[in-house]
């Protein structure tokens, strides 16, 4: 992993190349993370891949996180890997919840990084984050006509209550 000073160097270089793209960075458990503005995510990832000193050419994972009740609510994590030096860096795009019927949006990276195709669909399926420009954004693991974004924190877990002897009366007619 790039260590903490290395992370700051990357952040400084990125700020020169794409000003205002990186809004924060942190280094914990030996892992480096850059926090990025969602509109600039394509530039940041392209810079990390193409710049001669960086060369993070492998996108290992794209996944979404719901930070409720913290703000901004959603984060899309991009795990990058440099295979030559075996270094990993994480780029996190923080998205606000627009509220009511609108869904948060972020530009897709699936044309530059083909591995993000199914993974962005999964983030859309579970969190409702729309990847603008994705060729085929539809649900991947839930049924196509499912309503709701299951892995959001305010989505109920579902399932059935377990019936114990002392809760039998709360579930009338369970024996039928």
């Amino acid at each position, binding site marked *: 992993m790039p260590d903490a000073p290395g992370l700051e160097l990357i952040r400084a270089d990125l700020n020169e190349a794409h000003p205002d793209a990186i809004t924060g960075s942190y280094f*914990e458990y030996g892992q480096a993370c850059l926090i990025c503005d969602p509109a600039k995510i394509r530039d940041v990832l392209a810079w990390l891949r193409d710049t001669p000193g960086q060369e993070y050419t492998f*996108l290992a994972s794209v996944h979404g996180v719901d930070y409720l009740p913290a703000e901004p609510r959603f984060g899309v994590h991009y795990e990058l890997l440099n295979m030559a030096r075996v270094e*990993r860096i994480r780029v996190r795009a923080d998205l606000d919840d627009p509220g009511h019927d609108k869904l948060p949006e972020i530009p897709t990276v699936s044309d530059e990084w083909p591995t993000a195709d199914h993974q962005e669909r999964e983030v859309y399926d579970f969190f409702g984050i729309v990847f603008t420009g994705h060729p085929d954004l539809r649900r991947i693991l839930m049924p196509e006509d499912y309503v709701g974004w299951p892995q959001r924190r305010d989505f109920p877990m579902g399932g059935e209550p377990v019936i114990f002897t002392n809760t039998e009366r709360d579930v009338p007619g369970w024996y039928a």
Partner: protein
Amino acid sequence: MSDVEERLRDDEPAEDESSRTSRPSGAPLNGAGNENTRGSSPAHGRDIVARSSAEVIGTSVIERTGADESLEMEQELMTVNLGPHHPATHGVLRLLVSLQGETVIDLKPIMGYVHTGIEKNCEDKSYWKAIPFVERMDYLSYFFNMQAFVGCVEKMLDLEIPPRAKYLRVIHMELNRLHSHLVWLGTSALDLGAMSMFFYCFRDRDRILDLFEMSTGQRMHTRYFQVGGVFEDIPVGFERKVKAFTQEFPTRIDQFEALLTKNEIFLQRTKGVGIVDRERLKQLGVTGPLLRAAGEPWDLRKVDPYLAYEDFDFDIPIGTVGDGWDRFRCRIQEMRESVRIIEQAIDGLPEGPVLADDRKIVLPPRHELSTSMEALIHHFKLVTEGFRVPPGECYYPIESPRGELGCFILADGSAKPARVHFRDPSFVNLQSLRDMCVGEYIADMIQNLAMLDPILGGIDR
């Protein structure tokens, strides 16, 4: 009919007797003459590989393949639905295949038929209780799922596990790798028609499950790894049985090879089929034996060692071409290397405890509960509430039999994880199925799917 002649010419198998001899591990497994085998000319859709998926879905079939317009008159497009209930889809995978005659023009995998909501369910359970959930994702490599989760939690807690626990974890994980490859071999050979391989592989798989049952009590889904080490020490006869197993297993692998590697039908079906080049695989995020068969020496056990892997001497088998034959050979060789690792691990098994000492995280041993008050309180807190993990995020990748299995945990300071996500290798590897199959025959698609080794539990989670 000049393009038909072209296709016939391409169909001749290239002579490569060098690949039939057994090679020392680490050396390329295929001769260099394989590029001329069928499936590599542009008319078969190799240039589809370079185009983005947006173009491919939007444009018409004839444009995409560059097929001759005279073909349009002769054949029509047929869409076939394979699955989700199908004997050859290795689980409930649904494939929508567009065929022109017998050639695959387009392929769309539809998954989610065994989606269990494990990641969401883990948010409701404490870390200890989430281990059985997480185990059941990629249901053939359950020790690896456990290691990814438990390793991530240990990293966040900065918990050092005792060396005996590390070795025991490695032993069980490599046994699980053998088990997973045996099931893969049995079911793949069954798909390709070699039905007796199924019985041989499952016979040996039962011996591995006997070992698991001896040490952990369960055949599958053992809940053996705990945060801080391993649940229990191995019983008395275990080392002897593992040694006997490692003595005998290489002969079994020889038997499997003797059945398949000189089998003309198997060679014809796997050689030169499903080739995707290295760069494209890396763009697609593919890892594991698929990437290694294409020639990339990438194995997380070697490049980024975790647990006790740096103590062992083993090699990584690498292919050259990346066709089905290479993938088969890579996995067979990986089985031999796993046996080597297990031998070394069981010989060098250090003495000591199997669980870390930190009582705030690890359950105290039961005999202390009747004498020590602190142990009782720790036990109570750990069982009812669980240990707390300081807030933070961590991503921990390991090398599972299918590729890079990464676990991401977001902790919010409480006893339950706020988000658990698994970067499952099969989920990402499945994106390469399209590139492998387009332009080839539908029978090759079955073979490609078999050699891809998808596990739907991991894909769907």
